[in-house]
């Protein structure tokens, strides 16, 4: 039985990370405390560096990655936003370091509860990013992300995210693989042009004025390669470790779903329980849980919802002033569905903010709205702030 934090630490240990940079902030700190214990005991041979802040954490592991070491760090909440400056240098410099994020509501006012806004606000920085729903998936994602990120065709840093508290601190059954299995799945990190004395290189000179746009285009082209690398990695993972992951989405009872939820992270577990309840009452509900935010599984989402009549995204993050005046999943969801011959109706629900639990009753309320939308053949509102409506 491991919590999400403990599972992440196990994943990092199995990945034989070489340079770790810590800084305390709730709720991800438990990952670092566990790794510190492992290093002190000799269970893990790594350089454990006490960073002076989250900005430093990402900077330290960036340097380590540039020198050819597999590097690992993490943070939560305002720590994630404090490190922001270094995200683009890490992605543009093609350093495949990994950052574990146990998300947390951003200040103000210093709430420790889960909210996805912290990591979501970094989704444009060019990293791979995705949420786990169980401690098992946290461990698995740690390994899968190293494999995908360090692929020679990819070479990108990764945000491996989990819900603070709900996932980071609540234990569940985790199968911890053998090191030999991991070594079969994850080859050693090989930096293409490490900082070395044998073969001197310059990392990150200023580029010519006409090269800014091409650099962006090249980075975008890399993201076009990521899906096939993910598919191969997940196929290998399933084979070696006996799991059954879809590379992109977790689909629950979608085969004949008429209404569906689009939800990421640990709250999806409650959602599945709610779906079971709803189905026993006769409603054909289903759920799609994206395992990746970047790269966004556009095609797969469109296919998954093609036959559904109404979809609701469950927003556990905020995007004030955004197009739908709610969260940010709904924007990319709608964009994914736009080209369908027959588009489902789409709405969104703000729930699980500020560390709130999403209750079964909340999911049932959402189902009620979705059913209403199907009957009326229209969307009345684009966003519902559950608990805060007139």
């Amino acid at each position, binding site marked *: 039985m491991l919590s999400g934090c403990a599972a992440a630490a196990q994943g990092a240990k199995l990945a034989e990370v*070489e*340079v770790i*940079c810590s800084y305390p902030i709730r709720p991800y700190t438990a990952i670092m405390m566990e790794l510190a214990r492992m*290093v002190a005991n000799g269970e893990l*041979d*790594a*350089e*454990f*560096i*006490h*960073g*002076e*802040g989250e*900005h*430093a954490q990402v*900077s*330290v*592991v*960036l*340097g*380590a*990655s*540039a*020198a*050819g*070491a597999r*590097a690992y760090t993490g943070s939560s909440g305002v720590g994630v936003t404090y490190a922001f*400056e*270094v995200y683009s*240098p890490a992605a543009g410099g093609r350093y495949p370091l990994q950052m574990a994020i146990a998300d947390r509501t951003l200040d103000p006012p210093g709430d420790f509860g889960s909210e996805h806004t912290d990591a979501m606000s970094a989704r444009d920085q060019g990293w791979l990013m995705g949420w786990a729903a169980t401690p098992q998936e946290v461990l698995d994602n740690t390994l899968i992300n190293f494999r995908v990120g360090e692929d020679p065709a990819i070479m990108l840093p990764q945000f491996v995210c989990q819900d603070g508290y709900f996932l980071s601190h609540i234990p569940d059954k985790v199968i911890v693989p053998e090191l030999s299995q991991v070594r079969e799945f994850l080859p*050693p990190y090989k930096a293409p042009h490490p*900082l*070395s*004395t*044998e073969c*001197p*290189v*310059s*990392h*990150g*000179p*200023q*580029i*010519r004025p006409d*090269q800014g746009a091409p650099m962006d285009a090249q980075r975008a082209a890399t993201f076009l390669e990521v899906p096939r690398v993910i598919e191969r990695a997940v196929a290998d993972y399933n084979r070696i470790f006996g799991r059954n992951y879809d590379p992109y989405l977790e689909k629950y009872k979608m085969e004949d779903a008429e209404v569906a939820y689009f939800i990421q992270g640990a709250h999806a577990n409650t959602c599945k329980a709610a779906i079971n309840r709803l189905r026993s009452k006769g409603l054909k509900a289903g759920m799609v849980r994206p395992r990746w935010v970047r790269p966004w599984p556009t095609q797969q989402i469109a296919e998954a919802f093609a036959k559904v009549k109404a979809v609701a995204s469950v927003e556990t993050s905020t995007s004030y002033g955004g197009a739908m005046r709610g969260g940010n999943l709904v924007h990319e969801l709608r964009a994914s569905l736009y080209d369908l011959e027959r588009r489902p109706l789409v709405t969104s629900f703000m729930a699980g903010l500020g560390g709130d639990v999403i209750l079964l009753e909340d999911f049932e309320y959402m189902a009620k709205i979705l059913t209403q939308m199907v009957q009326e053949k229209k969307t009345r509102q684009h966003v519902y702030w559950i608990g805060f409506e007139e």
Partner: protein
Amino acid sequence: MGEAFDYKKQILEPIKSMRSAPAEEMYLPGHRTCAGCGPALNYRLTAKAAGKDTIFIGPTGCMYVANSSYLCTPYAVSWIHAQITNGGAVASGIEAAYKILARKKKYTGAFPNVIVMAGDGGSVDIGLQAMSAMMYRGHDILFICYDNEAYANTGIQTSPTTPYGANTTFTPPGKAIPEGKTLFPKDPPQLVIGGHPAVKYVATTCISYPVDLMNKVRKALNVNGPTFLHMLAPCPKGWKFDEKLTREMGRLAVDTGMWSLYEWENGVYKYSHIPKQYKPVGEYMKFQGRFSHLKAEHIAKMQAFVDEKIQRVKAIAVEAAIPTPKARA
């Protein structure tokens, strides 16, 4: 930070003269620095002294932007750009990576010299946190602050090492503020010496004393732990003097007491050069357009500040010859 690990690092021998210094350039011709650039000269001498087993970390600043314009750099050794905020942190990661890779025998070469070349802003302003943390953690890194006394690359703005009375674009003199800059500067080596128990060697250098500079670089690199060098880097554009006077400005800085040339080693100060007779600060300031607006009362204030610094020098004593580095474990 992992267990104690005995890694082999080369010991650099003292340099006896300019002529006997290694002829090989590690900071090559072909960079967009201003003609007569003080920081560039510092870089060249440092790189020469450090040799080929070196990795430079270059936080944003003149020595990044001007050196690496248009996808080409003048570094014959490995170099990585860092943000102006995190020179110390990126260097820490590189040093740690080498430690673990050496321990795991994934890397079997000579342990490289890891050197941060940061400007004054990247050392004691926006970069202070990373620099101090690196010193505290005891990484085997040489942190060099090349001090041109301003944020020069962005068009000469004041930094914490800009002298009192300097005209910069953020401290222009005017009717309401006649002296321009009203604040007195931070003292970078004293910041390091003050409270970092892992630091064993700190020194100041000046390009007018090139052999002294190179030997201090080597001495610092021979130390197994964090070290700090504060390098005076006169800036013709920022200080507004004729570019051929770059080395002369260095000499005058030392001769007037505006710059002290010393080493601090395990708690002991040793001065590399103390003028027999200090010149008045006006002799230094008169060449520099950044001070041309000052009145007698401002110059007097500057003199008082320098006199107080000089008293400290005289109190500490022991004028030493140009230092020669000793081999250390």
